[in-house]
């Protein structure tokens, strides 16, 4: 009971941390791919456009991969083939 609450609370922290991780990796990835001109100190319009499309694409990609990942995980647990379940 208390064990479950403890686990729950840690999982929430983990999820928060995961989200932060996705967020900051996304910022870095889009920055790296879209920003390569350092003759100005503000984002150029074409860089800003690139960033926006990059974010959109990255999130859609991440959602898609999450769905696949969960399906594959569920499938694997169900089959349990050669792989001892818990």
């Amino acid at each position, binding site marked *: 009971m208390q064990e479950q609450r403890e*686990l729950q609370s840690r999982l929430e922290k983990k999820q928060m941390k995961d989200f932060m*991780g996705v967020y900051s990796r996304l910022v870095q990835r889009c920055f790296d791919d879209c920003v390569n001109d350092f003759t100005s100190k503000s984002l150029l319009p074409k860089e800003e456009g690139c960033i926006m499309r*990059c974010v959109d694409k990255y999130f859609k*990609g*991440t959602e898609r991969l999450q769905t696949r*990942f969960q399906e*594959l995980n569920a499938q*694997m647990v169900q089959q349990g083939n050669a792989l001892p379940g818990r």
Partner: protein
Amino acid sequence: MSFLFGQRPQPSSAEKIAAAEAEVEMVSDMFNRLSDSCHRKCVPADYREGELNKGESVCLDRCASKFFDVNIKVSEKMQSQAAAGGGAGGMGAMGGI
């Protein structure tokens, strides 16, 4: 990734939590790696549009599937090596503590 944690008996409740946490962390680390690799392999870095196009979507699906297969292959290989006795390292005591 539960197959990696299936062999050992897990007695105390603090240990159960630790094992569950380790598993969650492993799963999410694995997902992050899958995501990094598959984005890199399937989504070109020019971002002409914000949508995933058909080719990218299919590529991501197959990439996830193949990454999973690799994960399973590697895990099987390590289990059979471990069963065959030793091998494959284990990160023993490193450093000077």
